[in-house]
Each structure stands twice: as structure tokens, then as C-alpha cells.
């Protein structure tokens, strides 16, 4: 038996509609459970490879875990439990978020924007200074 792919488990749970927080936490818990089973088998004297095989067998098939979890409606993401409401709410939420997106991007990149603004100001002052010197040299030169 191959070692279970726990990253794949979380992805499959999310794809089957399980809320992300439940999917990732369950996958982590099951991975820890597998590690505990391996440790227990090794402590009982099993060689590492046999311990992993035994742990995977005791844990069960990933397919069964996914179907067991996805059969529980209460663990599904909101949009899967209320698909019709999600069809209305999600587009409206996106529409509302659209004007806020540049503001959010500005806040998120504030240090970068500040550096860009400071560079622009410095360049403007330098150019203005040069123009002033040129002007004065024309007038009094």
C-alpha cells in the first residue's frame, strides 16, 4: 500500500464541497493519526516500511474518508449548502468589492507607493531646480 497523500486528501475534500477549515484541519488530524500509528508500530518492533504499511491499512482508504466526510451536509461550505443564495450573494459581493479593490491594493502596498511618491517628488524638485538655475542664468547671465 502506498503512503497516503494527505495534501491530496485536503484538496479532494475541498473539491467535494467541504468547508476549507474542516478540510484542512481533518487532513492534518488524519496525517497526525497516521504518524501516531507508524510510531506505535515501530515501538512494537515493526520495521519502518512495514510500520507505514500497517498504519495505512489501519487508517483506511482515502476514498472512504472523502466519501464519509462529504456525506455530511453540515460540514459543507456555505455555498454548497445554499447554492441558490450563493448565486445571488457572490456576484453582489464581488460587485461591492470592486471599488474597494484599488484602495485595498494601495493599503497593502503602502511602503512601495510611499517610495514611488518620494522618488517622484525628488525628481520633480531636481528638475524644478535645474529650470530655476537656467532661468536665472538667462536673466542675469
Amino acid at each position, binding site marked *: 500500500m502506498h503512503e497516503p497523500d494527505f495534501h491530496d486528501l485536503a484538496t479532494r475534500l475541498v473539491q467535494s464541497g467541504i468547508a476549507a477549515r*474542516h478540510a484542512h*484541519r*481533518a487532513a*492534518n*488530524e*488524519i496525517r*497526525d*493519526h497516521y*504518524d*501516531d*500509528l507508524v510510531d506505535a508500530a515501530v515501538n512494537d518492533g515493526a520495521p519502518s516500511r512495514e510500520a507505514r504499511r500497517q498504519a495505512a*491499512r*489501519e*487508517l*483506511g*482508504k482515502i476514498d*472512504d*474518508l472523502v466519501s*464519509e*466526510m462529504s*456525506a*455530511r451536509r*453540515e*460540514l459543507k461550505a456555505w455555498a454548497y449548502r445554499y447554492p441558490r443564495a450563493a448565486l445571488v450573494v457572490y456576484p453582489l459581493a464581488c460587485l461591492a468589492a470592486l471599488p474597494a479593490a484599488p484602495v485595498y491594493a494601495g493599503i497593502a502596498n503602502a511602503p512601495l507607493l510611499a517610495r514611488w511618491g518620494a522618488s517622484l517628488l525628488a525628481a520633480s524638485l531636481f528638475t524644478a531646480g535645474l529650470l530655476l538655475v537656467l532661468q536665472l542664468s538667462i536673466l542675469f547671465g
Partner: protein
Amino acid sequence: MAKSNPPFMSGVPELLLLRLLDNREMYGYELVRSIKEVTGEAISLGEGVIYPVLHSLERNGSLKARRKPVGGRTRVYYSLTKQGRGRLQDLQDDWRRIQGGIETALESPGHA
């Protein structure tokens, strides 16, 4: 799962988990070991099966979960809520009623 539970076992994992968590908080692996121990291995759940049950019980407010670092790993410990104690009482009452009914049926002469 390593061992599948027959259909009449429906609800049994929930009852056992709530009963065990009534004593103290535990994490998944500990719970599976405890179930084997307290039932004398008569009931051996597929090890991965308990996580959907635990998450469902948490979702309906019977359990609460908290992360706790133990020996380099972050364990998720489950404990019973007040609502969970009520649920445990209801399940125990249901189980005893069913158990009584089945015992009566098994002890009475056959009608077939």
C-alpha cells in the same frame, strides 16, 4: 476503512465519543485507542471514520476543539460542551430503550 461497521452501528460512534469525552478532553488517536480499550475491542472503528463524526459534533455545538502543542505536534483536543452533555444523555436514554427492547425480543419465545 480497515473495518467497516454494520448498518446497525449507526449512531454508536457518536455515543461512544461523547461518553469518553465526558471524562476528559482527548484527541483523535487517543479516542480510537480508548474506544478499543473500553469496549474490549468488541467495537473497532475504522480509524479515519471518527474525524467526520468529531467535526460534525463540533459543528452542531456538542463538542469544542482547541489546538494544543504536544511533543512537537499540534494536537486538536476535543471536549464536551453543555449541549453535548444533553445530547449524550438523550443518546444514552435511546440506547438503553433500544437495548431493553432487543433483550426482551431475544428472550421471548419466537412468534415465527
